């Protein structure tokens, strides 16, 4: 196996729709686990997913998914499942029939297709509505049947475009658990979502996009640490916040100190995460602080997103 055969690789990929930029100069290497695509509307998330799944072709550059290229559909689509944003289905067919028919195209016999279809339908909790026509489904049910369709043939790479849209809170939680289970099995789960706190919970790594460019990628904490122009912030809940605040003031790297309104915590911002944590440890040891908790205040996707993409990139 070549080093690239176990990765999804974008090499200098650009896509233009006429003169309109879709994505530009994308270089990515995506590994197993959950990777979230985050960005405002029109940032190129869906274009990137369509490129990845071969629905559209790049104007420039190459894409390889586990060593396979999109122009060999017979090999490529055995490994890839795509839950698209398109909310349209063939008229008159039931959810079960749709999944079965497409599984037959994958080469499964009737019995095998029925079993796999039923298993996928059970995973998305759609057993009761499986034999109803898709046209009669609610938005959430259509979303779930699309998900079942994407996972039915057990793909190694699962691409999910806004898979949580239209789902109620219970279904969201179940779907997230399913994504985590699939990622835990070593699959590649690529999700785009507008809901940042959910992205924050489920993602192993994040790809942030803006105006067709990848502005950041990787583990969210690593991305945050590289943003040296934005001070790292932590909230320390302790019994002597004023003491910690006074110690922090004497350090050059600390740029902001604020005591909580309830007087039981202090917010510290520093240009250096390492020096900030060293400071806290030193004060705890030297002055006998009792610490309830140390909470990073801007190491989440939302903060990184707002720093990188700013208020113009409202979700």
């Amino acid at each position, binding site marked *: 196996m070549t080093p690239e055969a176990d990765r999804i690789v974008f090499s200098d990929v650009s896509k233009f*729709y*006429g003169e309109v930029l879709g994505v530009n100069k994308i270089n990515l290497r995506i590994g197993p686990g959950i990777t979230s695509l985050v960005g405002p509307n029109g940032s190129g998330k869906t274009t990137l997913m369509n490129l990845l*799944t*071969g*629905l*559209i*072709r790049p104007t420039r550059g190459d894409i390889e998914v586990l060593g396979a290229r999109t*122009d060999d*559909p*017979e*090999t*490529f*689509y*055995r490994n*890839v*499942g*795509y839950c*698209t944003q*398109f909310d*349209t*289905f*063939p*008229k*008159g*067919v039931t959810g079960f*029939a*749709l999944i079965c*028919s*497409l599984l*037959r*195209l*994958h*080469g499964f016999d009737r019995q095998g297709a029925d079993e796999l279809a039923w298993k996928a339908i059970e995973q998305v909790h759609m057993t009761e509505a499986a034999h109803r*026509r898709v046209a009669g489904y609610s938005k959430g049910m259509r979303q779930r049947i699309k998900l079942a*369709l994407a996972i039915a043939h057990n793909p190694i790479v699962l691409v999910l475009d806004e898979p949580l849209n239209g789902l109620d809170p219970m279904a969201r939680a179940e779907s997230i658990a399913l994504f985590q289970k699939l990622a835990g099995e070593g699959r590649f789960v690529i999700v785009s979502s507008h809901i940042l706190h959910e992205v924050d919970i489920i993602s192993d790594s994040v790809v942030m996009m803006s105006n067709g460019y990848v502005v950041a990628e990787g583990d969210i904490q690593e991305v945050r640490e590289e943003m040296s122009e934005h001070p790292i912030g932590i909230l320390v809940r302790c019994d002597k916040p004023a003491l910690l605040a006074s110690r922090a003031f004497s350090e050059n790297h600390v740029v902001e100190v604020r005591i909580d309104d309830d007087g039981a915590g202090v917010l510290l911002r520093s240009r250096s995460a390492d020096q900030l944590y060293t400071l806290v440890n030193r004060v705890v040891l030297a002055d006998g602080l009792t610490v309830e908790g140390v909470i990073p205040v801007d190491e989440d996707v939302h903060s990184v997103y707002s720093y990188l993409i700013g208020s113009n990139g409202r979700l």
Partner: protein
Amino acid sequence: MFLKWAEQILVVAWFEIRKFRAGRKWFFPILLAAAPVCLVTLLLLFDPRPPDNSEITQIFAVMFQTFMLRLMVLFGCALVFANLYRGDMVTRTIHFYLLAPVRREVLVAGKYLAGLLITSVFYGGSVGITNTLIHSANGSVVANAHFFAGPGMRELFSYVGIAVLGCVGWFRLHGDWISVQKPSHSCGVPAALGIGERISTGSAAKNQRRALPAIDRSGPHPTRPFRSDYGAIFRFRICQRLSRFYGSRVDR
């Protein structure tokens, strides 16, 4: 490999027929197929003096040339095939197929098989029923003599065969259409279309005329002796190649 493709073609065809039936796309195509049957039924019900067998043969020949071949089969196939190919793009459901491990050529062939089966059953059936009905105008004894002791059965199969060939030949038209509509990314599609078109131009138009069991002399489109027009085929090919070249060059 070929066995797998054949199986996939059958799966696509079966699914398309199912979609066609369940999606109620059959209404207008079947209305066209029912039109000559209804017309002949009305004639049988309200015409007090049915014509003799030779007149019936001539009436059917006119009807077949004028309405069935030129209107029913052409527009019926247009409705069915357009729905099969263009419909999926308009309704944005083609991605279900494009995300399956299926060669685009197989997909085109499966859809074509579905369209061919549907149109053959509709329009071959319509021609067969109409022919049988119209020859029943003079009672069952005359009809039995025509079909089982005379040329009736041969004529019937010839007409049904020609109607089916008409459906086959429609491939030439919709082939060009989908080349220009650029539905797929594969250059193999135009290649497959070229082969299909060669088969259809070599068979449908020529054989339709040669196989006609009765000569229509009095209708608006009287049967003329077949003459090869190789120049027309050459001109048609140039247009077709240009359209395919365009289809392959535009943004994919």
